[in-house]
């Protein structure tokens, strides 16, 4: 196996293609080279910035954003993208807005 193929294989195992759909938005967040070791906590600021969203509570409550995968909420933000994707080279997540009443 030549070096180029080896590098491509290595990249395939270290990175994945990530799509994050924000419900109701035209364009998804896409990262063709998202590290499999990236945690949801590390990913979240990148995604919120892309969709121009601010999380926060207050006296009257506020919005929080949660990732979901295959209809299940991903509440453990220390989870890595690779763990969620399992063996797949592609991962599709939803970003869901929730409202915490104050």
């Amino acid at each position, binding site marked *: 196996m030549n070096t180029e193929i080896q590098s491509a294989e290595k990249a395939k195992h270290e990175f994945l293609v990530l799509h994050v759909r924000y*419900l109701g938005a035209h364009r998804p967040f896409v990262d063709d080279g998202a590290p499999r070791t990236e945690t949801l906590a590390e990913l979240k600021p990148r995604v919120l910035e892309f969709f121009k969203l*601010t999380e926060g509570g*207050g006296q009257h409550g*506020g919005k929080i954003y949660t990732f979901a995968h295959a209809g299940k909420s991903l509440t453990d933000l220390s989870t890595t993208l690779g763990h969620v994707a399992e063996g797949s080279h592609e991962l599709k997540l939803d970003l869901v807005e929730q*409202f915490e009443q104050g």
Partner: protein
Amino acid sequence: MASDLELSLFEQELVEVRELPEASRWLLERDGSVSLGLLVTMYPSGSPEEFYLARIRWTNLFEPASLKFLRLDTGADDDPTAWPKCKGFRPSSLDACVSWTAEGHALHPDWRNSPKTAFKTRDKPVEFALLTLQYELDVCYDGRGHR
């Protein structure tokens, strides 16, 4: 009365949402009694035997939609047992006090005053309402309402 833009976007979205992967779990039809409304039968992923008929209507497509649940057999909109119990849903009051419904904002007019609580207009309001409701059923469902 809905504007031409709203009607056009609504028609376009009615086609597009049927292509969503989630749509394979829905029975979706237009609510012919209003300009901007639909009826959708959904079920929670954890309770696939529990069907709910939701009626979603917009007075303005770019504002929160009205959400009601109807009896599957009669279409009546005054039965708490037609409602799922989800976060913020109040079957006994026949409303959903959440930030994406008209009923929630009617109960909390102050929500409009802060960007932290105001409704954020969506590019695809129909898709947003349907997927948000499906998410609530899949993730937050806690049984059927009772009288």
